[in-house]
């Protein structure tokens, strides 16, 4: 599995369609306080199936929809699409493209799509947590989370081991 592109539209402060090419090696993301760096990280977490609004600093999932600015009104929907390159078990062969998308509309829930076809949240989460093959897909360390690894209880830390094993 390879991650190749992240596209956002209406997700938190990313009102306009935005594309991030995910290339080999180390890609830095920089900018002043409050410009949207952690929002970008959360968009990735969200499209990969994050179910907890709290993990996205929100008190409800609709808070990820662009809430407007001084100059613009709020949006009604947010969408994030993640482009992968296979192999992905059961979905894409080597080098084949795969697109995971998630869209949330005010007053309605989230809708997931895999290559344009509607899917369940569970299908997307399984894709990324392919326990059977022992493969992990991604590690996302949120802001402030790294030192906490030392302070968490030993049984919580063991759970990380289980996810990797």
């Amino acid at each position, binding site marked *: *599995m390879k*991650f190749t592109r992240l596209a956002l539209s209406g997700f*938190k*402060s*990313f*009102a*306009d369609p*935005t*594309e*991030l090419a*995910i*290339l*080999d*090696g*180390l*890609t*830095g*993301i*920089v*900018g*002043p306080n*409050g*410009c*949207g*760096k*952690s*929002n*970008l*990280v959360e968009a*990735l977490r969200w499209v990969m199936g994050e179910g907890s609004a709290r993990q996205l600093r929100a008190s409800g999932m609709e808070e990820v929809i662009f809430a407007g*600015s*001084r*100059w*613009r009104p709020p949006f009604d929907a947010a969408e994030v699409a993640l482009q992968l390159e296979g192999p992905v078990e059961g979905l894409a062969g080597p080098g084949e493209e795969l697109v995971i998308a998630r869209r949330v509309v005010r007053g309605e829930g989230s809708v997931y799509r895999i290559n344009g076809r509607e899917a369940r949240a569970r299908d997307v989460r399984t894709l990324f947590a392919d326990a059977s093959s*022992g*493969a*992990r*897909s*991604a*590690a*996302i*360390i949120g*802001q*402030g*989370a*790294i*030192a*906490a*690894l*030392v*302070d968490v209880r*030993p*049984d919580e*830390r*063991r759970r*990380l*081991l*289980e996810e*990797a*094993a």
Partner: protein
Amino acid sequence: ARVRLLETFRAVDGHFRRLFAELFGGGEGRLELAGADDPRVAGLEMVVRPPGKRLQHAGLLSGGEKSLAGLALVFAFFLARPAPLCVLDEVDAALDDANVVRFADVMARIARTTGTRFLVVTHHPLTMARMDRLYGITMAEEGVSRLVSVRLDEAVALRASA
């Protein structure tokens, strides 16, 4: 499953010991499964001793030292069970310059070794300098984020804009 967990534990522990010594420039760190015989219910303990210091419970470490120990654990998992993507949001915020350099060196080597792609959010010029490319996020239009490719000198200047 129990055998697999023990195997993974040994692999992660092996990498953790090496990475700890590298990130701290010495000292020793290791992992332990403790509190139960069955690894599936045992706790994963971190035993750490920065260079020149005595062994104490990991809670007493400084903010920067905890960040480094946490990074040693995260990277140990990556070396034991490689994954295609690693996203780090300001993990270097508490690190002084010497430790930032060691962190960036280790991360660069892991990227080359495992082929993992890294997305690294940072305010630290020394970390920025190690990146293969930089994207800047701005709010030229108030309240609306935009993504642009930037050079290192532009990135360092971005930290100061408001």
